[in-house]
């Protein structure tokens, strides 16, 4: 069995142990978590829900499902609640058992890992540079009935997104070929106009092979709790339910989802923070001969240093100051020179930029010239 453990951002536990400092002293730009969360409403609800942890969680996740269905205006029968988005991805592959899994890369490492866990053949398809656009024509041409394509929008790790007009027709063509498409929309909640960008209406078509998977852990800032969901044709939702572990979504995760998604103030605050910080981060980092910063639509951005060595030394120096970034050497098509950086609170974003400048001033002269 050739399955390597996937590499993830958010290696904060290890950093905390290695550096001998508490978690709270580490600035983690490697995990793309909403710095405003978790919402206060969620914290309060969790304290109240504590008494019920002796009981098995609701295996139908009725309340959370109802809130999600209402929030995104989809019928409840089309919603599956999962133990993080990764469980939903696993379930889709487990139930469909596709002949080949076409992964559009660079991408979240769990797609490939989940395919290998399910003993499936993986075909890597490079996204087209510089916009990380999907080669739809090639997919329509080369995929066969029984295959599955995994694509994410907004794209992790570049932070770009594609509007519906850019993918609706290709999805239709793939569906007609009997090809399933799993679209990971884990960062969709960070876009101001999700309706214009989501594939939910494609997923809701009866008999559709499109499944939209989303994470609530990023937006609500509860990765410790694990909560995600899928939206699909109702017969597919039923099949996914059949292949799952019955109680995988913990009671507290269900409570957090149901309460957090109804918190309008938190949603508005998040939208305002992100709009402001996207602009500010763009201005602070500005153009430079040392790096290229990709434009982003969401709460992280991709940047490329001129060379691997500079990237390596800089990230190590940051690590020793308790600042973590996501090096992209394991993303297909990227490399050590690429960083994925979360957008965090104004103070943290400034501290990050200042730390990079300081390291350059203190050590940059001693580094090999490019």
């Amino acid at each position, binding site marked *: 069995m050739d399955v390597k453990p996937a590499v993830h951002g958010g290696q904060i536990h290890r950093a905390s142990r290695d550096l001998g400092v508490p978690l709270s002293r580490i600035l983690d730009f490697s995990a793309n978590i909403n710095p405003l969360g978790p919402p206060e409403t969620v914290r309060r609800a969790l304290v109240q829900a504590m008494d019920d942890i002796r009981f098995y969680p609701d295996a139908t996740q009725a309340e959370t499902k109802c809130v999600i269905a209402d929030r995104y205006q989809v019928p409840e029968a089309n919603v599956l609640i999962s133990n993080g988005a990764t469980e939903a991805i696993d379930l889709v592959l487990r139930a469909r058992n596709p002949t080949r899994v076409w992964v559009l890369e660079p991408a979240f490492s769990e797609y490939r890992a989940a395919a290998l866990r399910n003993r499936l053949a993986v075909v890597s398809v490079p996204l087209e540079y510089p916009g990380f656009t999907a080669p739809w024509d090639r997919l329509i041409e080369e995929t066969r009935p029984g295959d599955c394509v995994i694509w994410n929008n907004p794209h992790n790790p570049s932070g770009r997104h594609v509007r519906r007009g850019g993918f609706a027709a290709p999805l239709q063509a793939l569906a007609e070929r009997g090809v*399933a498409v799993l679209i990971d929309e884990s960062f969709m909640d960070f876009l101001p106009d999700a309706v214009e960008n989501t594939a939910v209406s494609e997923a809701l078509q009866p008999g559709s092979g499109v499944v939209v998977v989303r994470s609530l852990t990023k937006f609500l800032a509860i990765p410790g709790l694990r909560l995600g969901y899928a939206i699909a044709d109702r017969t597919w939702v039923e099949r996914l339910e*059949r292949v799952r*572990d019955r109680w995988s979504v913990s009671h507290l995760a269900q409570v957090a989802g149901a309460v957090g998604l109804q918190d309008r103030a938190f949603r508005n605050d998040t939208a305002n923070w992100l709009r402001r910080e996207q602009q500010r981060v763009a201005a602070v980092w500005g153009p430079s001969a040392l790096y290229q910063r990709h434009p982003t639509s969401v709460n992280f951005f991709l940047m490329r240093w001129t060379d691997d060595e500079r990237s390596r030394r800089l990230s190590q120096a940051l690590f020793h100051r308790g600042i973590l970034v996501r090096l992209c050497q394991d993303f297909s098509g990227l490399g050590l020179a690429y960083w994925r950086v979360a957008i965090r609170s104004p103070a943290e974003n400034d501290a990050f930029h200042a730390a990079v400048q300081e390291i350059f001033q203190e050590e940059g002269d001693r580094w090999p010239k490019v």
Partner: protein
Amino acid sequence: MVKPRPQVDAMTLYTPGRSLEDARQASGRKEMVKLASNESLWGPSPSVITAIQEALPHLQYYPAVQEPRLREVLAIRHGLKPGQIVMGNGADEMLRLVAAAFVSVGDEVLYPAPSFSAYRHSTLLAGGVPKEVPLAGNGANDLEAMCRAITERTRVVYLCSPNNPTGTPVTLEAWQRYLAEVPEHVVTVVDAAYEEFVAGPEMPDFLGAVRQDRAIVVVRTFSKLYALAGLRTGWATAPEWLMPALLKVREPFSLNSLGAVAAEAALKDSDYYGRVRQETLEARAFLLDALSQRGHQFFESQANFVTAALPVGVSDVPNRLMAEGFVVRPTDAFGLPQHIRVTVAPQPILEEFLTAFDRVLAQ
């Protein structure tokens, strides 16, 4: 049109015990006692609740893939090495991982019947061929029959001890004979979810077989004695040579961080859980005795539930008990008709239950 793998259509949706909310709606009663899912009505230790509350400010961090401190505490408690332990999302995930890692399409998988539905589910998911082995008359797994049923194609044997839904454990002698006879090409999974409630002398030492590097996976849970069912914390132990295969098929973040924090705190409060265990065993003895005095047939349970036969000709008992305020589990879905499974609760609750049960049967 995209189709599911053929095994999916052969699977059925699990029928869980009724939730309290369900039962309240169906019965129209506000006060309901749930004795249907073997949750601990003693609840978790107060120190567990404190530990969870202290962890709430850290929800914005991903869980550790395998929480090292928790594995260490578990290892010390059970005389294992941390590398022999894998944490996961309840016992269910652990049970599924073994089939996912070891069963290829067409391989045979043996499991007892009637027993927990996850064995068949895990087998079908892996494309295996399910082979049911009937229980012995006393409700325990029939290990001799298991050994006889093993063929060249058998890759995994699931055992359940104490068995759910009978509560009967396998004996030390039967286990030792099984270990002597089971061929090397078979991985044996012991689902020991109710292990903490086993009290008899000379009981099998499943963990001992792991320490001896046998091809044994023992699956345990924090949902029962430790009263953490809502948090989904399960674990399995296996020899280190077997572990990489399990880890490779596991989703990295399947165990949430509060589940890990709660489990660690629970293991540190031996006083509380020692007391709960003792009270559970006393309440079980009380329930078995009361059923016996009333002339009911039941299995000699070593778990935190008791499964009793319903008198012939009596029907609809679970629903009528619900009208009396008690949710119990009919065992039909396990393949054991005309029985109910009742969770052992603090004795005053059981006394009220018995009064209601008497009333229902007298109607």
